């Protein structure tokens, strides 16, 4: 695959795509009977599925079916919405994270998140990565510099920005900004990456670059990605979860290996959705 990414990382795309699943499935996140409420309005109910370690799991479905709420529950970002209540169970490596005892700052370091709209901080390119590292207690400057360079190389941004690390991050193009945000998440060495439609605000070329990047992140990281682009889900995901709204409540309709869900969906709704978009 011909990408503008540099060759610092050793992951190849073809190896990953040949396999039905990237590894022996092992639940990194085990979600059981999850429901999300905003005030009295339930947006998501009874979701159970396992996010496999090292795999890319795509969440598809129409707008408003609770995909983003599901995603934000996994790193407890929904805590920022005061009226939001999450019930059920989410086990990260067997440990419950939906308890008041969970250290959310540590949790969010282990589970990084990328948003739909690139949100680099209004700092320099370097400070965007340096500040989170400092805040997480990386004291040694040389060590931080090394990690920053590695993260920028991992997202293929190093060659583009290495000569202007102190320039404002907001001066980068949309695609570069999104890759910087991914680098900002990677620099903290998370285990899991949550991505909320990371390509949808980008132009087709930038979107392609970011998609290739996500593909390369699979295997090394566990990736959960929300996408409205079914072709994209098909190209990059190992597993796909299809969400749909029933009685105004978002539900998980079908979950399975990507090929199976797209080629031989079990549920009639899934088939209709996939075909509807196709047609």
């Amino acid at each position, binding site marked *: 695959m011909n990408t503008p990414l540099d060759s610092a990382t050793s992951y190849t795309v073809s190896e990953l795509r040949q396999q039905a699943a990237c590894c022996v499935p092992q639940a990194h996140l085990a979600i059981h009977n999850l429901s999300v409420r905003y005030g009295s309005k339930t947006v998501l109910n009874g979701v159970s599925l396992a996010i496999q370690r090292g795999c890319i799991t795509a969440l598809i479905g129409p707008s408003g079916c609770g995909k983003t709420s599901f995603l934000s529950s996994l790193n407890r*970002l929904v805590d920022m919405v005061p009226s939001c209540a999450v019930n059920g169970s989410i086990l990260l490596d067997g440990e419950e994270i939906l308890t008041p005892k969970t250290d959310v700052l540590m949790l969010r370091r282990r589970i*990084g998140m990328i948003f739909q709209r690139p949100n680099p901080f209004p700092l320099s390119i370097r400070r965007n990565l340096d500040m989170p590292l400092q805040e997480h207690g990386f004291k040694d400057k040389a060590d931080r510099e090394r990690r920053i360079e590695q993260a920028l190389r991992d997202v293929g941004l190093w060659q583009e920005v290495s000569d202007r690390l102190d320039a404002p*991050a907001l001066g980068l193009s949309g695609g570069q900004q999104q890759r910087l945000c991914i680098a900002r*998440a990677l620099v903290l060495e998370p285990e899991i990456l949550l991505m909320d439609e990371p390509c949808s605000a980008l132009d087709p070329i930038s979107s392609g670059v970011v998609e290739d990047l996500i593909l390369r992140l699979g295997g090394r990281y566990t990736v959960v990605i929300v996408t409205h682009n079914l072709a994209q889900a098909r190209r990059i995901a190992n597993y796909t979860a299809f969400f749909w709204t029933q009685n105004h409540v978002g539900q998980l309709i079908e979950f399975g290996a990507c090929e199976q869900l797209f080629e031989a969906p079990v549920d009639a709704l899934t088939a209709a959705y996939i075909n509807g978009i196709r047609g």
Partner: protein
Amino acid sequence: MTAWRSLASRRYSDHVLGALVWLSAAIIAGFFVWLLADMASQGLERVSWDFLTTEPERSGRRGGIAPMLVSTLVVLAITFVVAVPLGLATAIWLSEFTRANSPSAAAIRFSLDVLAGVPSIVYGLFGSAFFCVWLGLGYSLLAGGLTLACMVLPILIRTSEAGLAAVPDDWRQGAAALGLTRWAALRYLLLPAAAPALTAGLMLGIGRALAETAVLLFTSGYVDRMPASWLDSGRVLAVHIFDLSMNVTGGDQAAYGTALVLLALLLVVNGLAIALSDRWLARRITHA
């Protein structure tokens, strides 16, 4: 047969609008220049180094304004040492730590808006009763500074809160998703991004505090000697201008001179506020 307006008539109305806008701006600028020229023509010859550094003689008809300058600076310092931390903390609480429809936050916002409109003479009465009498501070620069702090707090809080609220939520979410503390988000992102609004609030507060006469008549007193300490009473520049122009015959020139000094002080303090916020806050962030 078409209903299109001719290009000429559209151009004409554009010109009229342009002229009106320019005229309005010119009128405003003109008034300011007139004010400045009037003050300068009547008071500039009075302003000198001696004027700034000597005590007044014969009720201010002669001599300088050194005690008033010192009193003003002390009162201003007390006001902002008290009001800025308290105001910023309250603004942060209102914008970052309360729910959007929290009743307690709504109650506090409402009281702040009412307080911002309360006439200063009422603050003067309150300060006199509370700080001077009840807390036993007497007529003192401290009592005046504290009363002024109460008076500028509502403006400071509401402008700072509006500034913080205008910072995009994307950055809050991005910071939270990276496992950053709220304090880190405030320090590195929210406060620097809100710096222009914080400075604007501060400048409004400074302007109000420097111009204040009524409050300080009630709380800091009237005597025109050099204050011995912040617990001593003293006369600020605005009170001095009032006294010279109302009670001292032949004090007009000194009043104009003092007004010029007050205006210069306002410019200097505002410039300082901009420079400090730029140095401590705004420079941290870099917009493209």
